[in-house]
């Protein structure tokens, strides 16, 4: 009997591994920056280029950093959700306009709505490298101490907002 059970068992184990493998997304590379301080940046505002924002301005509040670009198609998918989230007042969203043209970026925001408290400009993607950005959009949840708590790779979805991002934000806001 075991003669037949052993191969069957081995097959089931192999099939289980392959099945789990099918559901994993190889494009989602876990970020080593989770639970590490958000890299400090000093960047010009998109709308008022003579103003500078640093990431340390946001110490003491929970905030989202959303990496976006007008050339990014997937950004258009998540954009209505970001506008909704911004309107709800749950959390301030800051935009990192990644490797874009200022004029087209501003036109894009005019057309699709502007959810960002401030959008800053990263014209050559150098700050993007510090944040480990390898595709747009990406969204970071940063806590009151300036520590990255979550990275959403790819567009945010209703599901990811409801199940992960918003509960995390509420929990982080409760912390001192």
């Amino acid at each position, binding site marked *: 009997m075991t003669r037949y059970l052993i191969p069957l068992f081995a097959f089931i184990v192999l099939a289980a591994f392959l099945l789990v493998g099918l559901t994993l997304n190889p494009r989602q*590379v876990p970020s080593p920056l989770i639970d590490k301080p958000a890299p400090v940046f000093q960047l010009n505002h998109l709308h008022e280029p003579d103003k500078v924002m640093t990431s340390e301005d946001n110490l003491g509040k929970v905030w989202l950093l959303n990496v976006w670009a007008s050339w990014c198609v997937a950004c258009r998918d998540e954009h209505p959700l970001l506008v909704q989230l911004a309107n709800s007042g749950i959390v301030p969203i800051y935009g990192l306009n990644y490797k874009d043209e200022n004029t087209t970026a501003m036109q894009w925001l005019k057309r699709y709505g502007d959810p960002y408290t401030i959008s800053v400009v990263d014209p050559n993607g150098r700050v993007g490298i510090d944040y480990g950005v*390898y595709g747009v959009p990406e969204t970071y949840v940063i806590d009151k101490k300036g520590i990255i708590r979550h990275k959403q790779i790819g567009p945010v979805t209703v599901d990811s907002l409801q199940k992960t991002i918003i509960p995390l934000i509420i929990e982080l806001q409760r912390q001192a």
Partner: protein
Amino acid sequence: MNFSQLLKNYGRYDLLTSYRLGSVKGLIILLLLIFIVPSSAWSKEAIPVAEDPEIEKRMLALTMDLRCLVCQNESIADSRADFSNDIRREIRTQIKANKSDQEIIQFLVDRYGDFVLYNPPMKPTTILLWFGPVALFVVGLGSLVVYLRRRREQIEEVSLSETELKKAEALLNDNKGKNV
């Protein structure tokens, strides 16, 4: 050859009839569009190679062993993705700033994780990766040995009985005369 044939031969009939050409002027404009626009609009200028061949050599050696996160089966050295361009530029500036190879690798690992390395470091999380194949091989070899031993026991030679021996001898003797 008339107009539509010309266009058909060019293989872009559907697209170009929408220009609604009616005159020689139209034809000239069309031909200009066909021959000039693609070559200027669709080709990018080659990105100049760094001035210093030494830097380029080090950069290439480094990026050979780094994975492009956008096109995951290519190294950063081979990839034409924007991401790889940025990383190559970053590595060039770091080499110019006199950073060591190790510092540059660490810089990238800090930001993108071990996944950028084609040569993963030995760590508790990568033990399975490093020794998994060896473990599988040992398990396979072990079960092969066990299987072969068992089989040998099963097909152990059975000695012939007296009568069977005589029968065989008789058959052999019988054949001798005929074959010679």
